[in-house]
């Protein structure tokens, strides 16, 4: 079967000030194929696809779409020519309903004599949602009442509704649980069957190898190679990505799951304000890596927040055992040497318009100030640089705003912000979201090192391999209740967990 070209970039170059995000990249996408795109954080994956979709212009180079010269000036124009993109960051607009989000900018379709018919719009929205198999959400609901996964699905419905000929999926799956992922995989496969094209960006090698027909590797803004299906091997891909052999452990290598009998946190019979957790109890032990998994709306994300005092608790309480104090606010949690990496990076974990430096410092300023509260610039710099280096945060300077970082690098800033503080109890909600494998390995080693120093880590994650690979003890939540608990063991596998999850 001869491959038919749908999109081509020739010598595409993009500069951001001193940063070269793309360097003369020749990139081809074919019809009837899922083209994978992989590369370290900041290698230019989002940049090249967002240029194709019209979100930003290229500095130099040409693009062709369906044989025509392609130079979209906006995302709307890009969508009109047939390129739809599901963006890495949150793409829905707060304060609107689900339906309004789906038809943002297209309200005129539902306008007769100046009035927008909400019922018509809701009906069309329902169809759009049904079309991707996302049922059970009322389109007239406010988008803010949805969790992150559902918001993402709304966004997907919006993109698919416009029937794109080429669909870009930018690192969407890490924000989704299995159910959401299945929806995306189905959409991609359907597009391939309809002889349309998909560009799929992910850091999950397995996922890429399973779904993609070809896999293009970017490194530091250069296109390194494009692998065919039979060339896709984990080792080969990694080597192309980082430019050298990757050695060392990925997860921790030991299977010693002994748990210190000393309890540090007691979560006693809590029911949260959103009603997602009901009469939930849990004891957290000193020095353990406690993995928490489940479906996305099972209540595990709320549990993390509740422990940190950021979720309204209707009944029950969270007690810090060592001090005997109850934790009800983030402030108290911090005072008891707790830290929390939120899943909602852009909204809750970062100040996007602030510099990398200020974001990293924000959680640890009291740690670097001397007794009089004075901060010596040298200490401040050392503190920031340590995080930047330890996590390989790719930036032009630490004074750069975090909003200009690539998705994975933003996540590293959040991680660094809390790691630097040296908390005794660290709650991590999807800590490796969007992070490339190299840095993921570094993060896992950091987490393991903290455990060995006697620190307690609560790791909430959508990624089962990561939970299995790291946890001393793994609990699974289902519908707000404990549905399974596993000790660390070599034989533990995903199927055993999925059984109690669904």
């Amino acid at each position: 079967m001869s491959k038919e070209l749908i999109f081509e970039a020739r010598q595409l170059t993009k500069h951001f000030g001193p940063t070269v995000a793309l360097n003369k990249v020749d990139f081809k996408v074919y019809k009837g194929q899922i083209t994978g795109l992989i590369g370290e954080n900041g290698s230019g994956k989002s940049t090249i696809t967002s240029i194709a979709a019209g979100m930003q212009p290229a500095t130099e180079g040409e693009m062709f779409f369906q044989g025509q010269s392609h130079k979209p000036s906006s995302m709307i124009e890009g969508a009109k020519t047939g390129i739809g993109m599901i963006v890495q960051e949150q793409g829905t607009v707060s304060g609107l309903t689900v339906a309004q989000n789906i038809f943002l900018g297209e309200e005129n379709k539902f306008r007769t004599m100046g009035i927008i018919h909400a019922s018509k719009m809701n009906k069309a929205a329902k169809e759009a949602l049904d079309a991707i198999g996302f049922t059970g959400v009322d389109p007239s609901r406010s988008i803010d009442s949805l969790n992150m996964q559902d918001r993402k699905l709304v966004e997907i419905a919006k993109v698919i509704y416009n029937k794109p000929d080429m669909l870009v999926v930018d690192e969407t799956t890490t924000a989704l649980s299995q159910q959401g992922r299945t929806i995306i995989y189905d959409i991609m496969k359907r597009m391939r069957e309809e002889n349309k094209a998909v560009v799929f960006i992910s850091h999950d090698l397995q996922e890429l190898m399973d779904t993609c027909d070809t896999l293009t590797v970017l490194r530091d803004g250069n296109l390194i190679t494009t692998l065919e299906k039979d060339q896709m091997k984990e080792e080969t891909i990694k080597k192309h990505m980082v430019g050298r052999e990757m050695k060392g452990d990925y997860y921790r290598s030991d299977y010693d799951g002994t748990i210190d009998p000393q309890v540090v946190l007691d979560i006693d019979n809590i029911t949260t304000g959103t009603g997602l957790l009901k009469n939930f109890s849990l004891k957290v032990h000193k020095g353990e890596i406690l993995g928490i998994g489940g479906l996305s709306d099972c209540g595990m994300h709320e549990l993390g927040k509740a422990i940190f005092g950021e979720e309204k608790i209707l009944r029950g309480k969270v007690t810090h055992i060592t001090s005997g104090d109850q934790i009800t606010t983030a402030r108290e949690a911090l005072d008891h040497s707790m830290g929390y990496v939120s899943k909602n990076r852009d909204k809750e974990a970062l100040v996007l318009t602030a510099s990398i430096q200020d974001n990293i410092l924000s959680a640890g300023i009291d740690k670097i100030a001397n007794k009089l509260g004075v901060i010596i610039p040298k200490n401040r710099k050392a503190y920031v640089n340590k995080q930047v280096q330890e996590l390989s945060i790719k930036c032009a300077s630490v004074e750069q705003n975090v909003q200009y970082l690539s998705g994975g690098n933003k996540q590293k800033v959040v991680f660094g912000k809390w790691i630097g503080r040296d908390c005794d109890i660290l709650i991590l909600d999807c800590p490796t979201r969007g992070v490339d494998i190299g840095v993921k390995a570094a993060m896992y080693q950091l987490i393991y090192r903290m455990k060995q120093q006697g620190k307690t880590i609560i790791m909430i994650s959508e990624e089962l391999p990561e939970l299995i690979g790291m946890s001393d003890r793994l609990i699974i939540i289902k519908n707000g209740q404990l549905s399974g608990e596993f000790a660390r063991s070599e034989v533990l596998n995903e199927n055993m967990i999925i059984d109690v999850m669904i």
Partner: protein
Amino acid sequence: MDKSIVIDETNSKSSKINYSTIISKLSPYAGLVLSIVVFQILTGGKLLTISNLQSLTNQVIITALVAIGAVYVFGIGCFDMSLGSLVCLGSVVGGMVAIATGNIFFAFLVCMIIPIAAGIIKGIFASYVEVPFFIFTIVLGMVINAFVLVILGKETTLYLENAVTPIKTFNFTEMTVINVLVLGGFYLLCLFLFNYTGLGIRVKMLGGNYDAAKQTGMNITKIKITAFLVSALGVGLAAFLILIRVRTVGYSTAVSTGNDVMVALVLGGMPISGGPRTKISAGIIGAATITVLNSGLAIMGLSTGTIQICRGIVFLAVVLVASFSYRTKMLPR
């Protein structure tokens, strides 16, 4: 990981300088120089005469004191419209105390205590009450203005000459020394608190993203109250300096200070909504620019109303340009 050094030192220091950041950093200074040059020409050299320089300095000091402190308050995202009224209240009550006791130290205390008390109230309000803060400060400003009228009663102006025991008159040199010391000291204090303690980062974070700041475990009430207290110091010092320099205070003392301060912050290069681009220098540079603007327009013989219109236009233009260049950078990714 062996690939550890990733901050590209060579890049940031190389010839490819990031022009846009430099331009945005320098533009407030350029604005100041430009307005001095333009008005020096338009007024036929009357802007920079010795006598006008004296009055310029006096005005800059007052606006700058209030504006530098206000950087903290606007920085955390609190739009405070009561600053001018508080300067007025401080100097009027301070004047009354001075006249009644003949003691300048008591007057100083009163000038400081009034804004500090108001600052605490504002801080508590901003932390606990769910009414938009700027509305609260508009109302507060109106109440204060009315209160000043009430306590002044029949006399509209207070004269320090009427004090029970004479209050020292400072000559020009003495006044200049006091002005420079007070402004310099306050500026350094604010600069220090902002850049060498945790306060500055906390202010920027809080103004930039409330949720993220809260989740970082910051004591938000404490930060807010601290910000209002720093601002109150500036207001109090301004009230006291007006009192001892002008020696006559009344209902219309510092009427335009509140507005000047807002315009000053914007002209000084910080967003009026606060957040990460908050900086102390905005207070002092902006105060100088707005004072030159006011003075230049006045020398040119424009009426107060026309001056107000001109200032409004400048204000809007700066806000527009700032928000425009800000938006284009915010690409969704």
